């Protein structure tokens, strides 16, 4: 699948390129317009959408390209968010002088560092397993972080922690919703670029090779384990960064955000959009969030139509939204 994609990229721009470009353009233009025309709530929805799309893009690197089904990625989101919450908490209420600060760069650095470390540690163990066992062990690590945070009573435990002051950066203020959205959007573009570069690099190709045939790669003398571990660490770091944004956006964080169902939701965004497609996770996140928002307006029992749509999309929509686009394109390409 990826090979045909590669080939197609040397051709004149395929349809999916334009659709991706339009999607990114819409995300750049529509939310600010909504905000300016007196729809601040919808800017919020889009901010959340873009942040989750960023997290899903990170997950896509390991799940889509690496074929490693991580069921614990919400943990990174949570770690990133608490990397904002905990220093801010101490800056306000004292204690832990080493990290007590409103400084955004510190928050950001902590978020990325802690997530990458956690990814390294758990990835090293998880990669010993395969298949469903990998799915479950990543979930187990996620649950452990969940309960660890619940136990941190200082930071609210189960009740969560309110972030009273957002991360401070020179020149910009994250308190301005438009600025925050802009930052999130640019971060998403950056992450897309990084993932794009990685998947086209030797490293990325090896990673994808390991997905389709690990045995063969090993017989070629390639140490898949190392490649996969690095991918997990990069993915974790990006996801932690998304958590940093999420913390600043929602100004309230709780262990709830690292529950296994949240990891599941991230997975669904990736699959819904189409695993192993660059912009797939954005489609997935958009479909997921907008559908949720619209259905919730229609009925409090919105889980029912939502669940049905999930099932139907699996049954009749293989390869997700991007997959559908791809089929469209290959039909168009046929003479």
């Amino acid at each position: 699948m990826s090979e045909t994609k590669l080939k197609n990229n040397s051709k004149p721009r395929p349809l999916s390129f334009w659709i991706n470009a339009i999607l990114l353009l819409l995300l750049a233009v529509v939310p600010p317009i909504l905000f300016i025309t007196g729809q601040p709530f919808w800017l919020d929805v889009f901010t959340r959408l873009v942040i989750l799309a960023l997290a899903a893009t990170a997950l896509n690197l390991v799940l889509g390209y690496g074929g490693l089904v991580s069921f614990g990625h919400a943990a990174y989101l949570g770690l990133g968010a608490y990397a904002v919450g905990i220093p801010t908490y101490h800056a306000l209420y004292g204690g832990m002088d080493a990290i007590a600060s409103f400084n955004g760069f510190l928050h950001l650095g902590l978020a990325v560092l802690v997530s990458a470390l956690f990814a390294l540690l758990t990835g090293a163990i998880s990669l010993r397993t395969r298949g469903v066992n990998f799915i479950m062990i990543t979930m187990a690590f996620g649950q452990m972080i969940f309960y660890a945070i619940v136990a941190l009573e200082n930071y609210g435990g189960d009740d969560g922690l309110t972030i009273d002051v957002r991360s401070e950066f020179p020149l910009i203020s994250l308190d301005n919703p438009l600025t925050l959205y802009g930052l999130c959007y640019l971060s998403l573009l950056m992450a897309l670029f990084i993932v794009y570069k990685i998947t086209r690099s030797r490293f990325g190709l090896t990673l994808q090779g390991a997905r389709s045939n690990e045995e063969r790669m090993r017989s070629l003398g390639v140490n898949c384990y190392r490649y996969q571990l690095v991918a997990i660490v990069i993915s974790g770091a990006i996801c932690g960064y998304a958590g940093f944004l999420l913390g600043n956006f929602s100004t309230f964080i709780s262990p709830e955000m690292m529950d296994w169902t949240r990891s599941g939701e991230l997975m669904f965004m990736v699959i819904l959009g189409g695993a192993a497609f660059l912009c797939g996770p954005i489609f997935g996140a958009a479909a997921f969030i907008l559908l949720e928002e619209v259905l919730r307006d229609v009925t409090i029992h919105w889980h029912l139509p939502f669940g049905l749509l999930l099932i139907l999309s699996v049954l009749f929509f293989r390869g997700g939204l991007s997959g559908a686009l791809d089929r469209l394109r290959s039909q168009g390409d046929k003479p």
Partner: protein
Amino acid sequence: MEASLLLIQLLNGLQLGILLFLLSAGLTLTFGIMDFVNLAHGSLYMLGAFICASLTQLTGSFALAALLAVPLTALCGLLIEMVVIRQLYSRNHLDHVLATFGLILCLDTIAEIVWSPAGIAIALPDILNGQLEVLPGVVVPVFRLLIIAVGLLAAAGLYLLVNHTKLGMLIRAGASNRTMVGALGVDIKTLFSGVFAIGAALAGLAGLLVAPIAEASIGMGNEIIITAFVVIIIGGIGSMKGAFIAALLIGLIDTLGRSYLDDIFKLIMSNEAAETAAPAISAMLIYLMMAVILAIRPQGLFPASSR
């Protein structure tokens, strides 16, 4: 830490383990044999509880309701298998997870609409509400003994079914080589439907056994299904023996952790620290155990080949 208390806690752990086994047995059947990841297995557990609760209210008899609820849950499972799950056998695990998560959302909401969100308590006959002194000083609620007995009976029945009947042979044969079983004239689709229904029946049984203790409630299955998955992963996927042993292990560890961890922690740290750490660690205990076991034995304790 006196002996009689320890004994009671062991029984409590056994009871929890047996409930977990009933759930994970169904998962083992669907997962180990059909290679199908069914997150919605917990919804069948919930359905079993609700059906039994409604029937108890209707008939006034818990025993009769329980007797009817098991086949009815199996029927629900059959329906779900034929409408949704059958289409997914040829797909990968990710699609299974996604579709069955959708199923959970649907089934939970349907249950909420049908039975109202409040949940239903089940009235037990007086004899089941009483206690029994099994040993001097060891007084145990009768109903919990019943759970243990019914669970062990179901486990024994399952053992006989899998190991000593033609259906069991086909189930095991299907687990190792689906195509060959089909080529020898067995309708795999029907076999799978049947196996799925058996799994649903076991989940329903577990659900209706829990309901008189903790009532039938919306989403009750989503909480325990993750633990059941932990059980089959630790036990080794596809291994009934592994599921049984791992279920009892987790039941015991969880219960003993809850009962004694704070006392143990108090030996090595301050009272206050122990009171904070113990609940957190005991909640994490089974995941911790799973991570450790998988780190040492990636295939689980009893990989399917040794079944």
